[in-house]
């Protein structure tokens, strides 16, 4: 591998290292707030389509959920990448892992974002 590539990869990992910490601090507010509200205060027994529709009637909550989706899932997927890099030592295997995680991250994030923007649809 050339020195240029090594330099590039190090700088990506540096960005990822910092991003995990800054997004983590942000997620304290977003994720703790979400868990306390939905799991503890409201509770799963009071959550249904109407509840989601009511919540998403407010664009503030939609933006909250969009930020939570974007930061939490990216943070989580990069975490999985870090854990796997402890076990996968071959360069080409790690590249395959990275591509697979990138695809999963993109597909699932787009699904979630589509639902947040599209909102609750009526049952046919």
């Amino acid at each position: 591998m050339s020195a240029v590539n090594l330099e590039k990869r190090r700088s990506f990992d540096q960005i990822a290292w910092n991003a995990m910490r800054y997004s983590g601090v942000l997620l304290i507010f977003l994720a703790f707030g979400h868990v306390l509200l939905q799991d503890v205060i409201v509770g799963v027994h009071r959550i249904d389509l109407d509840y989601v529709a009511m919540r998403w009637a407010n664009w503030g909550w939609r933006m909250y959920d969009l930020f939570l989706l974007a930061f939490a899932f990216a943070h989580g997927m990069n975490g999985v990448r870090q854990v796997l890099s402890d076990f996968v030592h071959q360069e080409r295997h790690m590249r395959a892992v990275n591509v697979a995680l990138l695809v999963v991250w993109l597909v699932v994030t787009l699904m979630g974002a589509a639902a947040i923007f599209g909102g609750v649809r009526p049952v046919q």
Partner: protein
Amino acid sequence: MSRLKTALGGYAGYQGREGHLAFLLHRVTGLGTVLFLTIHIVDTALVYFRPELYMDAVALYRSTLFGIGEVFLVFCVFYHGINGLRIAAFDLFLKKNWQIQTARSSVRWTLGLTLLLWLPATVIMVRNLLIHNFGLFGG
């Protein structure tokens, strides 16, 4: 396969006391959270893609088994968040706190704070479970 053994052997055999425990818990709680998060994004997306299936997913989450899982999930989120805040604070602003005695006591504080948040949340969630799934407390 030997690499897997080396890595897992390192996880298990390293004798790093509080720091070791914090590292292992951070990994396990992070992986647990991201596993559920992936499923949760997909099931919530059903409200748009297949709204008629959304209540099937919610019915699963209302079951007693998932209710118990939810209690552990909340522990995962709280521990991972508080320990992550400790890591971020030390790495970014307070590097000298990685000194071994401070680092060890900060792990004990992290665990204490996690329990302080998690135990009241658990009482409320278990109470909800007993009300809705077992008809207790006037449910």
